[in-house]
């Protein structure tokens, strides 16, 4: 409980910094997601109450923006870039290979919660297309083989220093 | 049997026959129509095979099974002017309500034949195979005119037929009433 209390204190600090202003909702959701990892219903209710906003409004804003996550993500996150350049360079095949290899669906997590496969609409690394991000590491000019072996290393706890 | 009479057919696919009832509701106006048209095929007449060289065919009902699909294609090749009669033909209507379900063909059959508490429940094998989705006519063949309504009023049917028989294009503004 100590950690969760700590998180609530951090959230309160953010709320205070923004003067509990309703126009800061997006900033507060960003911070809350950073603090808690994702935005569950209780948290949204809490934020709605603190900012004196209707819960439906907070829910509407949260779900409008694809960056906000309402479900707990996996321990490791693979993000595939769906930008034009990556599409042209065949990111779809890589995604399909990841789905098959690790038995998960796009947007979802593996049964053991170790790995999530998410998407972004372009990270702006188009010249290195196709780009795949494993946790915080960007893999440019990715191929099926490289990505799958890197994911395996990540899951196995092997630190990979080469970029 | 004047050769000048327009050859008209009506066809009944997946619908409740309400549109045909509405057709008959033209009442005494049917006598006027009969002077100009000759019904060459209809569920209310006893002609088995759909004839060639039909001028106008009114089709009631959505296309829901393979038999109807074949029928529609045959009708289209043998008809100059094809008219969708009623909401089922125009939009799928009630027949298409099942389209919301995945594998709706099987879901419908299960519900109809197996859900009733009947020990002998079984899906009969002589019914034509259902299509995965019930479709309006124009998603399968080219349709020339549409008479929406569930059922379309006798007045509307009479208006469209009269216009077509006199070579005019019926205007549907203010007349296209669904439901």
């Amino acid at each position: 409980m100590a950690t969760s209390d700590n998180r609530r204190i951090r959230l309160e600090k953010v709320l205070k910094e923004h003067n509990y202003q309703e126009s800061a909702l997006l900033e507060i959701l960003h911070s809350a997601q950073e603090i808690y990892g994702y935005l569950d219903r209780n948290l949204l209710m809490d934020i709605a109450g603190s900012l004196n906003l209707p819960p439906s409004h907070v829910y509407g804003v949260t779900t409008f923006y694809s960056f906000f996550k309402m479900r707990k993500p996996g321990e490791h996150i693979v993000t595939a870039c769906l930008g034009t350049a990556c599409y042209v360079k065949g990111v779809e095949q890589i995604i399909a290979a990841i789905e098959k290899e690790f038995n998960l669906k796009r947007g979802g997590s593996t049964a053991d919660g170790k790995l999530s496969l998410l998407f972004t609409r372009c990270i702006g690394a188009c010249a290195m297309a196709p780009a795949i991000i494993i946790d915080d590491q960007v893999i440019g000019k990715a191929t099926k083989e490289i990505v799958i072996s890197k994911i395996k290393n990540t899951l196995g706890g092997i630190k990979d220093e080469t970029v | 049997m004047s050769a000048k009479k327009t050859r008209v057919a009506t066809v009944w696919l997946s619908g409740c026959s309400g549109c045909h009832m509405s057709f008959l509701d033209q009442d005494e106006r049917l006598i006027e129509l009969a002077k100009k048209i000759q019904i060459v095929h209809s569920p209310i007449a006893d002609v088995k095979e759909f004839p060639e060289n039909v001028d106008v065919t009114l089709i009631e009902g959505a296309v829901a099974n393979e038999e109807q699909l074949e029928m529609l294609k045959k009708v289209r090749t043998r008809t100059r002017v094809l008219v969708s009669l009623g909401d089922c033909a125009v939009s799928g209507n009630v027949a298409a309500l099942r389209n919301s379900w995945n594998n709706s063909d099987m879901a419908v059959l299960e519900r109809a034949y197996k859900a009733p508490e009947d020990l002998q429940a079984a899906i009969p094998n002589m019914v034509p195979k259902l299509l995965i989705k019930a479709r309006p006519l124009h998603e399968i063949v080219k349709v020339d005119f549409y008479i929406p309504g569930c059922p379309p009023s006798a007045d509307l049917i009479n208006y469209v037929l009269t216009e077509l028989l006199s070579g005019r294009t019926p205007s549907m503004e203010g007349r296209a009433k669904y439901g």
Partner: protein
Amino acid sequence: MLKAFEDAVKEFGVENICKVARTGCIGTCSVGPAVLVDPGDYLYQCVTLENAREIVQKHIVLGEPVKRILYNNEGYFQKQQRLVLRNAGKIDPTRIQDYISVGGYFALAKCLATMTPQGVVDEITNSGLRGRGGAGFPVGQKWSLVARAHNTPKYIVANLDEGDPGVFANRTLAEADPHAIIEGMLIAGYAIGAQKGYIYIRSEYPLAIQTLQKAIAQAKDMNLLGDNILETQHKFDLELRFGAGAFVAGEETAILVSVEGRRAQPRPRPPYPANQGLWTKPTLIQNVESLANAPLIVLNGWAWFKSFGLPNCTGTKCFSLTGEINNPGLIEVPMGITLREIVYDIGGGISNGKKFKSVLVGGPSGGCLPEPLLEAPIDYDSLKKVGAIMGSGGIVVLNENSCMVDTARYFTDFCIEESCGKCTPCRAGLARVKEIFDRITTGEGELNDIDILEKASEYISNASLCGLGQTAPNPILTTLRYFREEYLEHIVDKKCRAGVCFKNEKAEE
């Protein structure tokens, strides 16, 4: 890498003549990591840790460039004109001193000391600068609209919500030269009488956010932001606002509601943001690339600026050049350059010896242009004429392996996902259009579908509420216009010449 160079410099004892500096993106992302040696603009490509020592030893100490790993594409830089990206790769973006040492904030000082706000607006108006966010609205006119608005306070929102997939010009600018954006906003603030600005930036750009945060803090320390700027009466404050993954938030009215913390659904104009923007106050919304031009214009005069580009379309434009091309990267070219020059001279032609097929100009709602239109000059009006748009400056080159029907389907799909869902044409229309594409690319298309596509596309572009819906059908309309035979092949012969479509059928065979 940085350390390897520092070590080498120490090893050879040339600290006094050589400084190792980090810098923002140089724009040649395909050959990274890259190292630039000044003077002389020697650019080394694909540098390894081992190369570091060699470069310092031979180039710095002996004065002989290491030709073996020099980036030897003369065309890449020759045809470019770097105004906005003037400092990219030349200065350390994390040091405000670097920016000042190359003339940074001089324009601001010139404004505050010698120019009236109206004078600044006139300067910009005369320069002919047009909005770089895509629509190309004259920047000076926009400034004067906000300047004339009576209501106060006034706001500036700098648009750095580069949502176009395949575009990274603004990101590079923010990472390589953040102070140019800040100075541009300060100048705009002085000109229109605004004292508060927001930079709306995508949360997907962590490095750009970090760089900007640092730059803002430095500017505050040096009294370039805050009260009494440069010891004058001028006040200006700057805050970052983070996007959260919504392409539509880059739209002029949607960005406002997003900054206000609501669902980024555009609203119809009028009222225009110049009169009723952020919290119904007069607001200037400007793309960061437009803003970064402002210091140059103020410093060098509008006549100087007009010497770049075309008479009716002045200056330069940054493009993100990607796709099946030899030298992808961020480029800045004068208006009026042809697509052929960009694709072949700068881009180095099609990679892997494949054949050129099409170039997509303007991002997901741009146009797919065929080979003959490579002669088209880049300016707002010419691009519009051929069915493309400037957009935020994405150029994607497609080779013979791309299917144009599938390409149009991909972009339609993107616009569907990113539609805000408010207006009928964009929300309900695009989704139905996509179904037609699904039918065509799986062999169930009918000739009638082409008519329906054309009719629906025309309706969507004319009736949609905002720019997203209005431009979303561009890829469909241009592929129908220039690559109609591919649609016909899909529908009639059930064939895809690029071998992209009909995948499911093939798998079953």
